[in-house]
């Protein structure tokens, strides 16, 4: 009779359990659980109140990453008059914000924030983007298929694409100078910054430094470390003397890491894929069992009907037999009586004409009996 419903659910449960315990081993950044960062991972603290907008960081970034020189040189500060964002050959930009309320303009450096649980990493289905234990979100062009989902996923609009490269276009973004960090050097921008508006260190350390600065000058800083919790936290942190919303930094992102938003539905995908066979088999078994049961029921019904019909028939036959027997007896009696009457008459007559009374009754009874049975 195939598998039972109870068995099917048992298998299903076992399979889901196996999946979960398997994926638990692979739990890390961009996983399904809140990831509080690799311990000791590095980051950069950008103190916006210290930045003077000299663009040295942009120049250093260009150098250390061997990028093509821009059309306008880095000491041309009129570039700051327009609002910019990183693109394929520019991993970082400094933007200037002025307003009537601000006595001095405010400068904000923009680059990859190296999220603790990056949206781009969770969006990348070939693992070309990964969160490194140094804190950097690193890109492996050899794996990239060029889908650019990372660009759509990034809430900070950071990854750029080499649209002008027709054959081997790559996604580009700040690498946090991963090769330099691994050699024990500072990121290019941090090293060059004359005002120490950029501070490199472990993320835990940077948060402490940021808090210390706020405590030392409570009226000079907005009481918020941008990147401490935004999108689940970033390795690039910001403190500012101006409300973040006024200097082009999104405050509507919330503190939920992007992967947490998609992990629910996406976590179901491997389960569905691996359980497909079990599921289909189960469905087949269930439907087959259903057919079988229906067939059995049908057979049972037919048998029952046949039996009742047979019984009915038998009854009728026996009744008829009884009736025929009675009739036969009656006929025999009548015939006998008739024959006896006739014999009596004949005798009476023969007593006058010499008749033979013995032949007649046996002769008639032999011939009439089978004839009557057949007609009935």
């Amino acid at each position, binding site marked *: 009779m195939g598998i039972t419903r109870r068995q099917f659910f048992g298998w299903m449960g076992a399979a889901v359990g196996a999946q979960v315990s398997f994926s638990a081993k692979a739990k890390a950044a961009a996983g399904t659980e809140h990831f509080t960062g690799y311990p000791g991972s590095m980051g950069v603290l950008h103190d916006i109140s210290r930045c*003077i907008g000299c663009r040295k960081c942009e120049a250093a970034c260009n150098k250390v990453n061997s990028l093509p020189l821009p059309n306008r040189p880095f000491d041309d500060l009129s570039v700051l008059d327009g609002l910019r964002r990183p693109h394929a050959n520019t991993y970082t930009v400094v933007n200037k914000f002025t307003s009537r309320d601000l006595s001095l303009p405010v400068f904000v450096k923009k680059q990859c924030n190296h999220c603790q649980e990056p949206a781009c990493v969770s969006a990348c289905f070939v693992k070309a983007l990964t969160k490194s234990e140094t804190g950097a979100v690193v890109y492996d062009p050899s794996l990239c298929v060029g889908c650019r989902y990372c660009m759509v996923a990034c809430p900070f609009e950071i990854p750029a694409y080499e649209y002008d490269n027709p054959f081997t276009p790559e996604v580009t973004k700040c690498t946090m100078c991963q090769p330099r960090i691994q050699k024990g050097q500072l990121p290019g921008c941090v090293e060059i910054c004359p005002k*120490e508006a950029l501070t490199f260190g472990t993320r835990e350390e940077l948060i402490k430094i940021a808090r210390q*600065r706020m405590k030392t000058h409570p009226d000079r800083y907005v009481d918020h470390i941008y990147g401490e919790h935004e999108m689940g936290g970033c390795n690039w942190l910001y403190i500012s003397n101006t409300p973040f919303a006024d200097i082009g930094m999104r405050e509507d992102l919330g503190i939920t890491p992007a992967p947490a938003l998609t992990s629910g539905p996406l976590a179901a995908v491997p389960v569905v894929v691996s359980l497909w066979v079990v599921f289909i088999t189960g469905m087949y078994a269930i439907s087959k069992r259903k057919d079988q049961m229906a067939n059995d029921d049908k057979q049972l019904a037919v048998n029952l009907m046949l039996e009742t019909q047979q019984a009915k028939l038998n009854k009728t036959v026996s009744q008829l037999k009884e009736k025929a027997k009675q009739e036969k007896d009656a006929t025999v009696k009548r015939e006998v009586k008739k024959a006896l009457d006739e014999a009596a008459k004949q005798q009476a007559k023969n007593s006058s004409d010499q008749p033979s009374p013995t032949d007649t009754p046996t002769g008639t009874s032999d011939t009439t009996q089978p004839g009557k049975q057949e007609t009935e």
Partner: protein
Amino acid sequence: MSNLPSNGFTKTICIALFILVLSFPLYGASSRNNHRPDLISIRLSGSADKKQMPDARFLHDKHTKALEDQDCNKCHQKEKNTFIFKFNRIKNSDYNTDKKLYHEKCIGCHQDRHSLGKICGPVASECRLCHLQTPDYISAITPFGFNKSLHYRHEMAETIRPADAGKETNCSACHHQFDKDLDKTIYIKGEEGTCRYCHKVEKTGKARSFQTVAHIDCLNCHYKINSDNKKAGPINCAGCHDADKQSNIEILKDIPRIKRNQPDSVLLSLWVKNALKSGKPANQFVKPVAFNHKTHETKLEHCYTCHHESMESCTTCHSRMGSEKSQFIRLGKAMHATDSLNSCMGCHKQNLNDENCAGCHWQMADKHFAENNCNKCHTIDRKLLNPIPETKDKAVKIAKKEINSWPYPHSLIPQEEIPDTVTIDIMKDQYEGAILPHRKIVNALLKRVQKSDLARHFHDGTITLCSGCHHNSPSSVTPPKCASCHGISHASEPDGRPGLKGAYHSQCINCHQQMNIKKPVSTDCIACHKKIKAINNADAAIRR
């Protein structure tokens, strides 16, 4: 047929232009032109529970301008020869009577002018031109306040001379106080105070609200003088309440002190006095303070900055443990709270934002209360109070003597002992060393300190100024080098102390920015240090 697309295009353009034209009035509405200092929203008392039209909006100065040949009495009635600035009535009546009054008088006047062919406001049946659902004007009433200059101008005005009985002064023209026994206001010389002492935001008892008083008393006086064709203050709304007009009001310099018999110096000694009275050892309590009342008067615009509404001494309400009248703010807090501009330290701290101070002080951390130097203010020897001075004059004398004993100017380091220039070349890389005009900087700071009495008092000569840059080590003529504490790395220490490069740039650039020194610009690298020519090799090295 080939015209069709271009027709569609023209249509789009036309629609776009139409929308643009339509939106022009909206642009106008959102500009500053609709900000009015004379916007009055007319809401009758007792109207809250009634179904009614929106409040009528009324532009006062527009009406006075239109009725230029007219008097205030066109709209306002007089009581005891004084205009009451209510519309055509002395007192509010009930809702329906007042409503009828407004409609009859407003619309009546508009109608009269209309029949004469003059410009006029809405007439009957044009309800929604006054009763607007969405306001077309925004109130831009800037609160007006007296300052010392304006007070002096009133004091000196020839036109305000029903002067004080038998005196040259005219204080009684405005200042008065309520006498409960006589049940009227009287003037007592030497006890003048701010209007706000009795005239609060809302009417309290017999005292009218500050708003009512300010309008009735000021404007009536201005009106009377103005009608004699003499120079008088404004009589329209914008004259006082428009921000631009306010900034045009003439400000006099070198104003003599307000004459109210206030002391030149005050001895602040409540704690010690109390200790001596009760026989406790006085040395357990903080030393008294000699307060220079005279110099503080010159620095502040209003007496009420320190005295609140009453002109009494601080300890009247701020007792040692606080009283209900002072909302339990103790004397100590009243003097030292850094978050209040009414306190000594709060106001002094505010002064540090001045560009003459901010260069050094901006870079210093906020001090905890315990880190402050008490001995800068608490200077008077306790023995001078034993015996306790019986009269106020004696106490004032002690304070005055102390103030006069302060050594100004403080000890200065001889010029030749101050290094002329300092070459900073400890970490040359892309740029040559920078030559710091050290002596020039010291002298510039000295000059700025001399500008302010407050700064002079708190800086003990040149040596204190050294600490502006040579911070965190005891003041000395031979302070440690910067590199003693700031490492020659590009990174800051884990304790947040900047590296040497960051320290140099922050110290120089922040000071220049805060002191509003325009040159050199913070991003002009070569203004301070020349670029090293062989930079290309260094570039190449970084590239590798």
